[in-house]
């Protein structure tokens, strides 16, 4: 059984100019221990999906329909207090900017200990030992001495390691990592991602890794979901999707990565820009930019369809296809 | 004009009943005060029309009230309603002029400090900081006291109105200066200003046509909120007896006069001008609060 199931999730933002649909009909699953990469342009709904799963959508955003299930239990409609016990304990979260996610007025030790004692039946002394253990695991040198330091005494990369320790310290089954390395120096990004990947593998933790860095995805993820304008446009095993993307958008996205093994005259690029949420076109949202657009794309919105090894929401893969 | 009615500002104005009401109230206050000499039922300064017989009349709905004097009369038989309208005129005028004064000084200082930077900047901001350490009412009192000591009494009575405007204006400029300086620093480093400098526009011209328009919306918000503050300051100074001259009583002066009769039961002489003052200040405050939210500049 899959660990996390997201079924037909729809997130809406009521505004005074009408309701914006930020996520529409998003469905995917994550198996225990699996790493699902989620990619797409800014505003495609990647981070929103993560926020909806941990139940921390920014008001006035709300889940309008659909379900989120953790080990078969619905968690999207839980009362605040019950959901709180799941956050941290069963689903951990890592945010983008380590400079702002740690409380500047508390030592990192205190923040770790309070998280551990909130979720696990241990006393303060034991929690502190565990905290030191986690700091060592995420690669903080001299953890025992540095546990009583304040966040500002660490560099950005070290702080993100602390954030990862905080997300993992109650041993959740799933981590939602929202662009965990985007705010870091390029030289440190690889180290942090490698550490995160190793730890997740050791602890058997599943991960939803939101990023726009295809390199990170290719190296870390088992499967990939490509998002566009609040929908999943293609989902499938990472190898297949990187090499043989089926959806024209994914093809464009993969075509914009410079291959290392051969020379190319020019990289492909996708013309135009992703539509704003308030102006999503009729039919397939990608139709104004799609090189393979045809009649049906302009009137009907495609579901996720089997496209060989991946599933793509594109009419090219409907029965009969473009013919 | 059409663009204005389509805009977000107009929308947020219309969708907030409190704001619409305070705008109407403020407009009534302003017109009542401006047209006092035309629409007020009596002229409180026309000594010939004052009847000492009519002194201390309670409001018309009380048993001994006189329907001629809706809100009653004061110790000299002046009609309270008319006195309030004339008083509001003085209060509004002083408040408005004081805000204009501090806006002009504050914006100029802020622009210069932000644009020039360096020593000029630190000197000007140091002055503003030192002044900000002291509550503005104290600064206004000091300015007033110093002028009072420096000029002979006869001259002082003539210029008292300007002294009050000056005192309140001086006490409030640092707030404008700080905000404008902050915005100027941001604007100055933007590329279009750099570009304007590169093509050799004079600093004065850059400040006026590039930087100034961009700092106007926070200035407008502060000015609105400051108007209510200036009106309150004037009322306080006049209440303390160091504000406008007794020949031109403002709402504060009226309250000061009424305060003496509080214990003998003539409560209306102090309370009605007080209510007028509160209504005026509250409506301006509400408008200012709304404006701040609508323009949403980074204000603290």
């Amino acid at each position, binding site marked *: 059984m899959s660990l996390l199931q997201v079924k037909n999730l729809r997130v809406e933002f009521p505004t005074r100019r009408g309701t914006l649909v930020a996520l529409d009909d998003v469905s995917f699953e994550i198996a225990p221990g699996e790493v699902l990469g989620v990619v797409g342009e800014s505003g495609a709904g990647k981070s929103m999906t993560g926020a909806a799963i941990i139940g921390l959508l920014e008001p006035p955003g709300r889940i309008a329909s659909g379900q989120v299930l953790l080990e078969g239990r619905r968690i999207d409609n839980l009362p605040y207090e019950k959901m709180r016990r799941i956050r941290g304990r069963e689903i951990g*979260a890592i945010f983008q900017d380590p400079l702002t996610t740690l409380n500047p007025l508390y030592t990192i030790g205190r923040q770790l200990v309070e998280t551990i004692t909130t979720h696990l039946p241990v006393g303060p002394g034991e929690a502190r030992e565990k905290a030191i253990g986690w700091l060592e695991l995420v690669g903080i040198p001299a953890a025992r001495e540095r546990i009583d330091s304040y966040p500002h005494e660490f560099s950005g990369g070290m702080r993100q390691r602390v954030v990862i320790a905080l997300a993992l310290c109650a041993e959740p089954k799933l981590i939602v990592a929202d662009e965990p390395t985007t705010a870091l120096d390029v030289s440190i990004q690889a180290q942090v991602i490698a550490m995160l990947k190793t730890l997740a593998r050791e602890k058997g933790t599943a991960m939803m890794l939101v990023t726009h860095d295809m390199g990170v995805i290719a190296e870390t993820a088992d499967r990939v979901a490509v998002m566009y304008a609040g929908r999943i446009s293609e989902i499938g095993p990472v190898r297949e999707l990187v090499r043989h993307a089926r959806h024209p958008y994914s093809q464009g996205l993969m075509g914009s990565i410079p291959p290392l093994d051969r020379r190319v005259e020019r990289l492909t690029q996708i013309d135009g820009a992703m539509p704003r949420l308030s102006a999503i076109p009729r039919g397939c949202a990608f139709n104004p930019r799609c090189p393979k657009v045809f009649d049906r794309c302009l009137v009907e919105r495609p579901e996720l369809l089997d496209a060989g090894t991946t599933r793509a929401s594109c009419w090219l893969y409907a029965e009969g296809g473009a013919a | 004009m059409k663009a204005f009615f389509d805009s977000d500002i107009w929308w947020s104005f219309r969708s907030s009943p409190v704001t619409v009401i305070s705008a109407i109230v403020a407009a009534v206050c302003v017109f009542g005060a401006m047209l006092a000499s035309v629409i007020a039922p009596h002229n409180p300064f026309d000594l010939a029309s004052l009847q000492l017989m009519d002194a201390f009349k309670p409001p018309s709905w009380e048993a001994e009230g006189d329907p001629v004097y809706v809100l009653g009369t004061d110790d000299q038989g002046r009609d309270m309603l008319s006195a309030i309208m004339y008083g509001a005129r003085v209060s509004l005028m002083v408040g408005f002029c004081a805000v204009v004064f501090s806006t002009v000084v504050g914006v100029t200082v802020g622009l210069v400090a932000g644009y020039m930077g360096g020593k000029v900047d630190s000197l000007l901001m140091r002055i503003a900081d030192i002044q900000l350490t002291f509550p503005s009412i104290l600064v206004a009192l000091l300015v007033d006291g110093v002028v009072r*000591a420096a000029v002979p009494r006869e001259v002082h009575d003539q210029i008292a109105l300007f002294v009050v405007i000056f005192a309140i204006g001086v006490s409030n400029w640092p707030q404008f200066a700080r905000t404008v300086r902050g915005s100027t620093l941001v604007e100055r480093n933007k590329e279009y200003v750099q570009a304007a400098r590169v093509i050799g526009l004079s600093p004065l011209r850059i400040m006026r046509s590039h930087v100034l328009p961009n700092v106007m919306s926070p200035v407008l918000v502060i000015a609105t909120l400051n108007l209510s503050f200036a009106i309150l300051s004037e009322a306080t100074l006049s209440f303390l007896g160091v504000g406008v001259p007794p020949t031109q009583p403002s709402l504060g002066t009226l309250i000061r006069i009424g305060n003496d009769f509080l214990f003998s039961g003539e409560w209306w002489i102090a309370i009605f001008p007080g209510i007028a003052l509160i209504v005026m*200040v509250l409506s301006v405050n509400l408008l200012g609060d709304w404006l701040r939210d609508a323009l949403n500049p980074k204000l603290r």
Partner: protein
Amino acid sequence: MFSFIVSRILQALPVMFVVSLISFAMFAYVGDPVAIMLGQDFTEAQRAALVRDLGLDEPFFVQFAKFIGNAVQGEFGLSYRLSRPVAELIAERAPATLELALCAAFISLCVGVPMGIYTGLFRHSWLSRFLLTFSLIGVSLPTFLIGILLILVFSVWLGWLPSFGRGDVVRIGWWSSGFLTVSGLKALILPAITLGLLQLTLIMRLVRSEMMEVLRTDYIKFARARGLPNRAIYFGHALKNTLVPVITIAGLQLGSIIAFAIVTETVFQWPGMGLLFIQSVGAADIPVMAAYLMMIAAVFVTINLVVDLLYYAVDPRLRVGRGRGH
């Protein structure tokens, strides 16, 4: 720690210097002290003698240095109006103002901070809306009008509380206290509420907006994502971060209580320094004004120092100079 205090004191010196300069300039150049002190009839010889006595014929900097020297010893000359040493006048009036200010500060902090926290956390509850409306009226009401309304209701109509003066005071050394008698305490109630109300609303609005700001930060979102209970998030993480800016501004506002005491003391005929000051402004009594200005400046500088020390206690980023890097 020590160097921190020293650097703050060094920063305060220019403020005190500028204020002394202004005080001295007022003292030396505004009005003609000699004419005021001699009255109507005097001979040129008397005038010259007084000028020499006062040291007014000496160069500016010598006079200024003497002024500062005297000021440090609490010596500000004679009041033009009352012909008594200014220092004596101020010492006589200080206890009344300080006791009043202390009560007002206590009221505004003890009521304003909890109200601010509540309205920041539960923004949409009806109580919050009520408190916010109340606070808006609070900032629109001038202090003197609050005083007048309170007098009208509680003294004139209900007759419960006195409307002027301090009641009976007990002398403890040179200090006179109204805290120890029933009439003294009763007399304190209305002025303290009047003086505290404006600060209360300001502090409430400040705490509220800071609280709301902090609740929007990433570290609060992350604390939620870690599944911490609301109690820990609100009263641990959020409140402590709210305190940092609140301490500064609340400190400055409490300082302004002393200045606003001028108005309250006038309304309630409270025999404090504010009443003395306003009477001096009316009579152009420059020595008293100069001394009052210097004293207020000293109070503000002290408050600033205390605020900085509190800051230092709350925010670890100030304690450890720089981050240690990787």
